[in-house]
């Protein structure tokens, strides 16, 4: 009977992915890369994601990271490795771009 709750406490990748996409669109959708504003944008994206995630009310700790890079021909590579509990923890990464910049947001959820 207790195991029926597992679905509610596993990391919900699709739901989180939707939250990330909406946060990115609302923070930087339609803007061109601007050096003076990018600091504000990364902060807004992570804060919005985090506040939407905590509203889900699930028993998780969250880490949200956001990278914004100007489109200039440079190469960028990111990797991550995690030491956690495979059955309950998870992550989700979303890549977004427009004409002048790339934005990569990663969310890691660790069950309490």
């Amino acid at each position, binding site marked *: 009977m207790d195991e029926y709750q597992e679905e509610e406490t596993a990391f919900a990748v699709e739901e989180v992915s939707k939250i990330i996409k909406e946060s990115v669109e609302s923070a930087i959708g339609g803007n061109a890369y601007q050096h003076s504003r990018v600091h504000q944008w990364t902060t807004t994206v*992570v804060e919005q994601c*985090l506040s939407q995630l905590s509203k889900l009310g699930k028993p998780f*700790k969250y*880490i949200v990271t956001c990278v914004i*890079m100007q489109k*200039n021909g440079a190469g960028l*590579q990111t990797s991550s490795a*995690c030491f956690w509990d495979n059955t309950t923890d998870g992550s989700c990464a979303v890549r977004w771009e427009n004409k002048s910049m790339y934005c990569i947001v990663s969310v890691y959820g660790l069950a*309490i």
Partner: protein
Amino acid sequence: MEEYNSGDEVLFNADEASVSVKECIEGVIGGTDYNQNKVNQWTASIVEHSLTHLVKQGRSFKYIVNCTIMQKSGAGLHTANSCYWDTATDGSCTVRWENRTMYCVVSVFAVAVA
């Protein structure tokens, strides 16, 4: 009586992690130039070695290690992170490293296990 356990074992030690991560970075890409063919191998090596070192410390933490390598070409790069956790026991550390041709940023997040 049971709470005599020294606080160090339960708190994340950011300085120690930072030293360990710098050594991993130097070991993998110290002295090399940005190479598009090798960069994915490099980021994977850096995160794996860093994670192995951290886990060897035997503390009761879950870890997330993130590594970003960017070619130096005048482009702007900005990163931010935000965490929803227990500030008394969890912590993070970020190491920035560069050479003539590339930047490397590694972040370690440590979350205490109940």
